[in-house]
């Protein structure tokens, strides 16, 4: 604690590069690692428990069912994970505000059903127009939920519960339209192919390499710019480790998906779902981390009154977040419907709630202001792994549901405990 005597009076002009020895951030690797370890001990565990948990379940499943780590199953798992992950992205928008949206699952169903309807007779709209109509409907539904929450100051839990129930009914009505008998089969090969078709292996190779190299260059450039500007930076070794981790993930994806996994013929390549959800991840993360809008969302979730006093419009920012949640849910519905080759009213009732679960298990706080899109990716992968593995071992949906319930409870308990520990330290 240093209290300096006030200096001689001088005008508060533009900062003229003052000397700041005391503020320079110690950036050696050993210090950084020590501080990180301290943070973990202090309760700021980040995604560590989740990664450990994921490692454990992967080992258990592989011991119980040797097919678990087969290329075929892993590619299948990735497909199943894709819409859980995307629904998780949707949920992150509202969770960051400190709100919740229970209806994203059925909102997704509406997008999928509308897409199927519009691409079939008698409408026969082009596939991309059908997708846009589905997405627009979901975005509007999200906006409506937001409007009720914001204008009438209703708890989002109740509003979205009402939409959950009502949207389910609307979904059943849509799939019963025009003499459809409870299901609308996709006829467009493009729409089915979104999830069911794979990128040609060469194209997959090029896309993954381009993404990894591009992301690495951007990361390193950013690191250098921050250093040049005198901003606080993490040790370069950590940046390098991130780049390596990204490269490893890309290589693993190619290794699993570009190998032939067909039993009766050649099946190879990365499903289109992967670049789709990775694209959403990059776009939404960018919005959240690099724009004023994203900053406002975090501020509102952290302390709405502070944000309001700072001149942030609470209503508009929240409305946009709810709308983006709806839009993202729609994207999840497009993937889900594509994976199933059509739309029905029989969406797995658990699936519609996995959105909330994946974001929360991934580490997004239920109380607002803390979490990233990336967390929904990890949480979604975790849930899909359990979803897939339990069935593969030979247990039924009942066990599946119980296990995921227990995992969710464990996830929020770990968060609560670490929060308490953080508060104490």
């Amino acid at each position, binding site marked *: 604690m240093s209290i300096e005597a006030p200096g001689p009076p001088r005008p*508060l002009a533009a900062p003229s590069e003052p000397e700041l020895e005391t503020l320079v951030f110690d950036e050696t690797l050993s210090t950084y690692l020590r501080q990180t370890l301290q943070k973990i001990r202090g309760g700021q565990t980040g995604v560590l428990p989740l990664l450990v948990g994921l490692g454990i379940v992967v080992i258990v499943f592989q011991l119980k069912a040797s097919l678990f780590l087969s290329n075929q199953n892993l590619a299948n798992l990735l497909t199943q994970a894709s819409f859980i992950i995307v629904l998780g992205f949707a949920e992150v928008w509202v969770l960051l505000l400190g709100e919740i949206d229970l209806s994203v699952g059925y909102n997704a169903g509406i997008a999928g059903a509308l897409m199927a309807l519009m691409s079939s007779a008698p409408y026969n709209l082009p596939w991309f127009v059908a997708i846009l109509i589905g997405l627009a409907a979901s975005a509007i539904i999200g906006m409506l939920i937001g409007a009720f929450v914001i204008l009438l100051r209703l708890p989002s839990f109740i509003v979205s519960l009402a939409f959950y129930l009502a949207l389910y009914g609307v979904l059943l009505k849509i799939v019963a339209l025009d003499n459809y008998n409870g299901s609308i089969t996709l006829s467009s090969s493009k729409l089915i192919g979104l999830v069911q078709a794979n990128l040609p292996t060469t194209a997959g190779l090029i896309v993954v390499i381009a993404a990894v190299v591009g992301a690495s260059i951007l990361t390193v450039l950013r690191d250098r710019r921050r250093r040049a500007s005198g*901003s606080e930076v993490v040790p370069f070794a950590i940046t390098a480790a991130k780049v390596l981790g990204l490269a490893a993930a890309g290589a693993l994806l190619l290794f699993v998906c570009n190998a032939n996994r067909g039993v009766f013929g050649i099946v190879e390549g990365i499903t289109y779902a992967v670049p789709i959800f990775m694209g959403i991840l990059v776009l939404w993360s960018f919005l959240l981390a690099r724009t004023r809008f994203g900053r406002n969302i975090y501020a509102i979730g952290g302390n709405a009154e502070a944000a309001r006093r*700072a001149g942030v419009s609470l209503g508009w920012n929240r409305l946009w977040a709810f709308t983006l949640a709806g839009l993202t849910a729609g994207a999840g519905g497009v993937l889900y419907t594509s994976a199933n080759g059509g739309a029905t009213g029989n969406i797995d009732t658990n699936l519609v709630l996995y959105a909330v679960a994946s974001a929360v298990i991934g580490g997004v706080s239920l109380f607002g202001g803390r979490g990233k899109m990336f967390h929904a990716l990890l949480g979604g992968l975790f849930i899909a792994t359990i979803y897939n593995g339990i069935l593969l071992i030979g247990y039924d949906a009942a066990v599946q549901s119980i296990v995921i319930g227990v995992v969710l409870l464990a996830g929020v308990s770990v968060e609560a405990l670490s929060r308490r520990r953080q508060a104490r330290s």
Partner: protein
Amino acid sequence: MLLSLRGVSKSFGAVHALQDVDLDVLAGKVTALVGDNGAGKSTLVKTVAGTWQPTSGEIFWKDQRTSIRTPRDADALGIATVYQDLALCDNLDIVQNMFLGHERLRFRLLDENAMERAARGTLAELSVTTVRSVRQLVASLSGGQRQSVAVARAVMRDAQLVIMDEPTAALGVSQTAQVLALIRTLADRGIGVLLISHNLNDVFSVADRIAVLYLGRLVHSGDVAGYTPQRVVEIITTGTLATAAT
């Protein structure tokens, strides 16, 4: 004269929260506003901050008659209020909090490097040297440090009058000293400070001028040298000086 109130009154129905208040706040001086609970300190602050409109009376900013209808008007004039609850977002870091609502952009994106430089510069100018990193979350800061961040935010936005509402109420001894030093630094930089405080020790150690509210009336004001803590206590509790002022 930075800010002058002339005959300012504020009524809530039959309750006269402020009656005919004359107050001057000078640039580069710390003006302490003291008074018992319910004396009208908060009402006065909120009137200057634009939260409430005076029922009658005039407000002059740099000798120009003005009206402060909204907090945004106060902001535009250069009046910043640092409230007791500080209005910081715990989940954001120091830089993010200091620029909240006024982020610097480059190609429409957040210019983190420029904001970090400016935030660090302002903290250094205010001799706030106890924070380890400007990228740590505000949740991890001490009460005095949070106060410093809130003040730095006001200063960075070119505030010419900083109103501080009970800045030391929740702080320990060393933290209080830190905040008082900060208040002194502000005044030495030519900024007018209106300090609302219950703590006469603080008032007498940092203020240049003192103004006493009693039941909505400004009963005494003047140079702090003309008062002693005992006399101020007497004015606060009785509204007058029983002993003849010398």
